[in-house]
């Protein structure tokens, strides 16, 4: 059965499970195998009773928390800047125009910035001083829509997981933001037409302003969230807000799945707001012509503080 334990451990590691979970699972199996031996089971009977460790590991991994997948820098990216960090805290300020940026966790203890594209990287600013990282696109002369394909730039910013991001401020006009596997105390986000993808993060206070870009938010824990969007859509999945969540939309649709929060205020002019398996404790709903629907399987008490609509439908099915 030694081989069973070894195979199980290898497969769990392969499935990117957390080390503490792996250790616990192995300890549980050592205990169960010992008990099976005390019962006097033969090696053959043991094999039958414990089954296949590979299948077992896959099954266990299917509902467990995973180690953040290492982010592989795609081909075509070049290293631009590397900084050794001087403190355990970090402030970040990013202001970009049409550049896409991915902000992910670093594989080591350094801050790395990579770039790709045909644009002239030397016109960009990237500094790290007084525990503040600043990335800025060159000041534009002329209009944004005059930018040609010949000066596009994509950036990847890698931040060590051990750093505490105290304040993260990011402004992008038309570029997209991908933010994954990083925690922050305060995150302020503002985009015009760029899309935002946020994955696996813990953020204390966050404020999002978007105009026509879409937001995809998955596996994010927040204390307070204040979001305001004009015509872009938002899709939230597995979002947990400890205190207050305020979502405002003009004509964009909002879809919230498998999420919960304490106090929730949903305001819409003509966008539809749909909650599926969405469990706020208290909720206030306001719309002009948009529909607001909350559909949950489990019956829980949701206190409706206020609801008003002019011509939209408000449906709460519990």
């Amino acid at each position, binding site marked *: 059965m030694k081989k069973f334990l070894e195979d199980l451990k290898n497969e769990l590691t392969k499935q990117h499970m957390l080390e503490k979970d792996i250790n616990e699972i192995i300890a549980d199996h050592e205990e169960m195998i010992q008990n099976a031996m005390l019962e006097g089971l033969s090696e053959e009977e043991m094999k039958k009773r*414990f089954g*296949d460790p590979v299948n077992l590991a896959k099954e266990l991994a299917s509902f467990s928390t995973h180690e953040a997948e290492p982010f592989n820098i795609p081909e075509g990216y070049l290293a631009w800047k590397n900084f050794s960090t001087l403190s355990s805290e970090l402030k970040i300020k990013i202001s970009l125009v049409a550049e896409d940026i991915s902000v992910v966790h670093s594989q080591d203890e350094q801050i790395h910035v990579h770039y790709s594209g045909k644009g002239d990287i030397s016109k960009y600013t990237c500094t790290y001083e007084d525990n503040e990282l600043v990335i800025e696109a060159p000041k534009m002369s002329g209009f944004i829509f005059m930018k040609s394909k010949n000066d596009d730039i994509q950036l990847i910013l890698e931040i060590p997981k051990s750093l505490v991001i105290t304040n993260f401020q990011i402004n992008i006009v038309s570029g997209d933001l991908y933010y994954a596997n990083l925690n922050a105390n305060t995150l302020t986000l503002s985009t015009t037409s760029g899309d935002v993808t946020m994955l696996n993060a813990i953020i204390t206070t966050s404020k999002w302003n978007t105009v026509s870009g879409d937001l995809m938010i998955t596996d994010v824990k927040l204390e307070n969230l204040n979001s305001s969007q004009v015509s872009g859509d938002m899709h939230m999945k597995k979002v947990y807000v400890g205190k207050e969540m305020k979502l405002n939309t003009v004509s964009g649709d909002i879809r919230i799945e498998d999420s919960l929060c304490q106090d929730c205020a949903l305001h819409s002019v003509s966008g539809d707001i749909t909650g599926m398996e969405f469990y706020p404790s208290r909720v206030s709903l306001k719309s002009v012509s948009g529909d607001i629907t909350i559909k949950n399987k489990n019956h829980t008490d949701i206190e409706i503080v206020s609801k008003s609509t002019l011509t939209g439908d408000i449906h709460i099915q519990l």
Partner: protein
Amino acid sequence: MNAQFKRGIIELCVLSTLVEKDTYGYQIISDLSQYIDVNENTIYPILRRLTNEGYFTTYLVESNEGAPRKYYKMSEKGFTYYMQLREEWDSFIGGVYHIINQGGKKHEEILRRFKERIN
């Protein structure tokens, strides 16, 4: 048998065991496999998943025969879940029996009537 379906039934069996008493992982496997064809690969993930969801809590008990054993204890939340699952199961299996026993329970009787009908 369909794996997903079987898993649901075994989940109910695991919950039933823990409604009666606190017990340790291997004991559950050993008890259940006396009656149904099931192995550790199916039971352990259920124990772990239901523990993660707060349906069971665990505690260690020293054993005379070796390492301490991890005992599983059903929580109130687990009990509520068990009752819900049980109700679903009862109404489902009740319906299934009604359908399959429409022609009687005895195999010979079912066969005789089938033969009569096709001849």
